[in-house]
């Protein structure tokens, strides 16, 4: 039996759980280096035009996934097209945890300048973060860190793949918020006219 074929079958069966290089090496009874070669061969095979799937490396595992270009066709068949994305508050909180883990709630709130218990609950419920221990000091507050699911959710191989933390950029503009102010002004004028 061809080794690339076996890898395809194994990755297919493992689905979104994925498999590590080590697991594949164990099952195939070969060195991990050999698996790297085979995965490369498989990747080349999936590059062909008539292939709709590919190998992705996420959360430390190899997985099969559909190619991006196929998304419009898949979306035609999806039962509930509304994939709920994370709220801005949850996303900011998650960004802080991702770059500063392990971190306490108080430290997160210090950076955001607002209470953050709700976004923390959301993130825990979605298994994107977890408790990773307790800080020293009074009350021994909970320390938070990201999970394997976090890597999977954002399609990251490891935490090292997070882009470097952006730096202050003076040239930037924020159009959306300007729109907000325009609307606010309109409302205020309306309110004024009604009086």
């Amino acid at each position, binding site marked *: 039996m061809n080794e690339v074929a076996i890898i395809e079958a194994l990755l297919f*069966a493992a689905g979104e759980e994925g498999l590590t290089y080590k697991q594949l090496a164990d099952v195939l009874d070969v060195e991990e280096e050999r698996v790297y070669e085979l995965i490369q061969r498989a990747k080349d095979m999936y590059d062909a035009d008539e292939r709709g799937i590919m190998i992705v490396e996420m959360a430390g595992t190899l997985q099969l*996934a559909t190619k991006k270009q196929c998304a419009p066709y898949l979306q035609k068949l999806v039962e509930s097209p509304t994939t709920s994305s994370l709220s801005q508050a949850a996303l*900011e909180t998650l960004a802080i945890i991702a770059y500063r883990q392990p971190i306490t709630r108080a430290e997160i709130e210090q950076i955001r300048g607002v209470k953050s218990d709700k976004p923390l609950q959301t993130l825990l419920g979605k298994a994107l973060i977890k408790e990773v221990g307790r800080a020293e000091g009074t009350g021994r507050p909970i320390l938070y860190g990201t999970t394997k*699911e976090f890597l999977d959710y*954002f399609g990251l191989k490891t935490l090292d793949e997070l882009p470097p*933390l952006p730096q202050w950029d003076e040239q930037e503009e924020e159009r959306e918020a300007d729109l907000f102010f325009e609307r606010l002004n309109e409302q205020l004028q309306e309110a004024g006219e009604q009086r």
Partner: protein
Amino acid sequence: MHYHVKLDQFEGPLDLLLHLIHRYEIDIYDIPVAQITEQYMAYIHAMKQLQLDVASEYLVMAATLIEMKSKMLLPKHEETLEDHELFIEEDPREQLMQQLIEYKKFKEAAKQLREREEERALLFTKPPSDLTAYATNGAPLALDVDVYDMLGALAKLLRRKKLQKPLHTKVARQEIPIGRRMEEILQILKNGERMNFYDLFPYDDREQIVVTFLALLELMKRNEIIVEQENNFADLYIRRKGD
């Protein structure tokens, strides 16, 4: 026309301040405290006028800004101070500036995560296949998971984009017509090839297995297929008769 302005348009006082800084092209390293305080207060008043709940954090920041403004107005006694005190005296804006710069980084990082979230949503994966059938010797599965593994599995389930189920299978599940399965088997064998008996059972579903089995029996009875076995315990092979 009524607009529903949400207070959560801003993620808090820092977010609002960042907005003001951009809008009025303010140099973050030299914030005009009087100006920004005025603008900030205008926003707070507007919110109150619209009878929106102003979260306490916004009011705390308002107080901080006003305090800072008054500190900035105090005359500096540089001439009268000892040299070492000169170094100790801090710009009252320093801390706020640092806080804004720090917060801004993560706001940007959140934006990058949003992009990745959207990209990732374009990839469809597949739930793991049920491999219990392959666990022959019934080796007990070890249990080394934590509550987050469990939550992770649930998150994946809830995130899983289900494709519409074919209407046919629902009907087929209840009663798969044996006649249809017989036709399918003949179709598979039409090239005159021998086929491994087990390859005719691609599904684990019990009903499907039973139907396939009954279809094979019926085809044998009608003399349309031949079942061969080379020796005892060897695999069974199916062939179409007359080919």
